[in-house]
């Protein structure tokens, strides 16, 4: 198996998403608040994974522009959930780097009273895996 194929499989496994279910309606891109910031658009995440074009996907700006607001996950009529895909791609990168994005020790200095607690908790949960 090529590396990209492996990575694509991994993304599918982490996200639990079957990209073949996509019917290319574009509702994800229509819902995305970061659409204009992205080079690869949410609806394209799906075809990048389906076509195993992972290298480009993980090097895209979009990877870090997704706000994980999950509007696309919520509204996708086909249960494809592009937000979960990009989230999985992000995890792939984080795991590859062999490091945790956040360590518990780093948290105190990051604490900003303005910051919603939930954001920290979810970020922590996500990047600690």
């Amino acid at each position, binding site marked *: 198996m090529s590396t990209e194929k492996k990575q694509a499989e991994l993304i599918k496994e982490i996200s639990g998403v079957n990209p073949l*279910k996509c*019917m*290319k*309606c*574009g*509702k*994800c*891109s*229509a*819902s*995305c608040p970061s*659409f*204009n910031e992205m080079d690869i*658009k949410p*609806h*394209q995440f799906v075809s990048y994974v389906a076509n195993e074009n992972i290298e480009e996907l993980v090097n895209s700006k979009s990877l870090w522009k997704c706000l994980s607001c999950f*509007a696309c996950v919520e*509204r*996708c*009529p*086909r*249960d494809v959930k592009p937000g979960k895909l990009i989230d999985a791609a992000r995890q792939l990168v984080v795991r590859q780097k062999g490091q945790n994005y956040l360590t518990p020790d780093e948290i105190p200095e990051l604490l900003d009273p303005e910051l919603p607690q939930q954001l920290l908790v979810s970020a922590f949960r996500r990047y600690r895996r």
Partner: protein
Amino acid sequence: MQRIGVFVCHCGSNIAATVDVKRVAEMALMEPGVVHAEDYQYMCSEAGQALIAKAIEEKQLTGLVICSCSPRMHEATFRKAAERAGLNPYMVEIANIREHCSWIHKDMEEATKKAVILMRAAVAKVNLNTPLQPGESLVTKRALVIGGGIAGIQTALDIADAGYEVDIVEKEPSIGGRMSQLDKTFPTLDCSACILTPKMVEAAAHEKINIYTYSEVEKVSGFVGDFTVDIRKKARSVDMDKCTGCGVCQEKCPSKKAPSEFNRGLNNRSAIYTPFAQAIPNVPVIDREHCIKFKTGKCGVCSKVCQAGAIDYDQKDEIVTEKYGAIVVATGFDIIKLDNYDEYAYSQSKDVITSLELERIMNAAGPTSGHLERLSDGKAPKEIVFIQCVGSRCSDDRGKSYCSKICCMYTAKHAMLIRDKYPDVNVTVFYIDVRTPGKNFDEFYRRAVEQYGVNYIKGQVGKVIPQPDGKLLVQGSDLLDNKQILKEADMVVLAAAIEPNPDVRKIATMLTASIDTNNFLTEAHAKLRPVESPTAGIFLSGVCQGPKDIPETVAQAGAAAVKAIGLLAKDKLMTNPCTAKPDETLCNGCSTCANVCPYGAITYEDKEIFDHGIRETRRVAQVNSALCQGCGACTVACPSGAMDLQGFSNRQIIAEVDAICR
């Protein structure tokens, strides 16, 4: 002990070239019960059949084994031949030594050995055969059509034209159904009422058609050819015989706050009402929930103004019991609730509407008298956005997994009509795919784009955000340009998915007609029997079977009518005698068999059973042989072996197994 005759066919050289037919016949004589065996060139020929008849007579045969081609080919031929010779046709078994033997094996020795074994299996089976008599049941020459929309009306008309009595049961106060709510119809743009109303009148005037409006099917019993149905005629509070349909009561009724069902709740109607002007029958009903007389006991205006004295506040629901030979289900559809689609702001803005609501707005008899205007402020919209596939093609549980089929076309119709009547209004359609497989359909859609300048955007809308100034901000994607679009609209029209009428579940249960996960009624065969339910005598017309447009609905309505007529034209039904039969003394009454029966043919009865000197009342299975199709699912489900299949009994099959493994 049976007296069995074995007849081995040469089939010219088809069999004889590879199977030693003489030896098969010789070997047959060594089998238990066999008293006669012979071979002949063509058993199915007249001479061959004469040979069989002669042997039956001379040797007093009680059973036949024909070693020949497939039973699918000539079983019927040989059964008839046996019957003519005075033998019960079900005492004949075929050993298939052509398709399953001579044609696939080359070695004569091997093929002959196999032919002998197949013959033995057939002989073993015939030894256990018993004469079977096909049952007979009478056909009531009257049909019931459930639902009085275009599907029901068309089916009723076609059946009635063939000379049979038809009753239509419609739960609303008038027939007409969804089609009566439509303004224009694609792809010809004729006015819906103009083509539907004459049919409604024709149905009402037809001497063979009897219409029960404001009525519902309450109970169904019986089976194909002989259904008994209870119909609940809901209290109308108006005497149908006296009412002249003058309409004064509706005008004078002081309670005018009831949302109009016909106008999808966009405006109100009086408590005494007919749903629309062309209603058939043109007799109002009193909506007791909104009627002041019923709520407070005071009022009675309608009664006072009615010259005919037709108002009857004491009317009660009435149950009518009728017998029918065939039942056609034509319960139609509704559009889905949009509660799960908050992103389109349907509940937040009056200017986000469904396509069916737009139909009413565009209709001259509708809430805005046909003027295209915003329901919030009555202003003329300048920018209209249509959103396709709202709730259709969804694999999550918010919507429906199927394509609603009609939306692409009616949206093109709406877009075109708006652009035609109001050229200054911009129309944008967000679509996933435009599906136009129908005669003149794609041409119609292209006309909307090319001739009327409707802006079609490939992409879906993510959300609709009502603005403080009353506008609607539509955020959608344009997949071909790879852009996200923000568009201010005055009106948003949602092509909401259609779903079978929610009542169909109840009706299907009463009819024991099967239903799929989407509540569409299942057809007996997806390709070959698309208008019949697997339950005999139940036929399907219109959208209750699956999404359809008007021409398809009418075509299916006609097809369902033909199937019903085909049934009603028979005086008696011959039933397949190879049906399940319970041994009542062994039956546990556990209902396992009934649970797997696809035809609802098994019922339970408390019956007095005499078994081993004990007389007691037991719950035992009963098979309605008119409904049973003989699949045998029940026989395996039954743990005690009480349920057996005639013609394919447990012992017969085991005898075949034993003969083959001998």
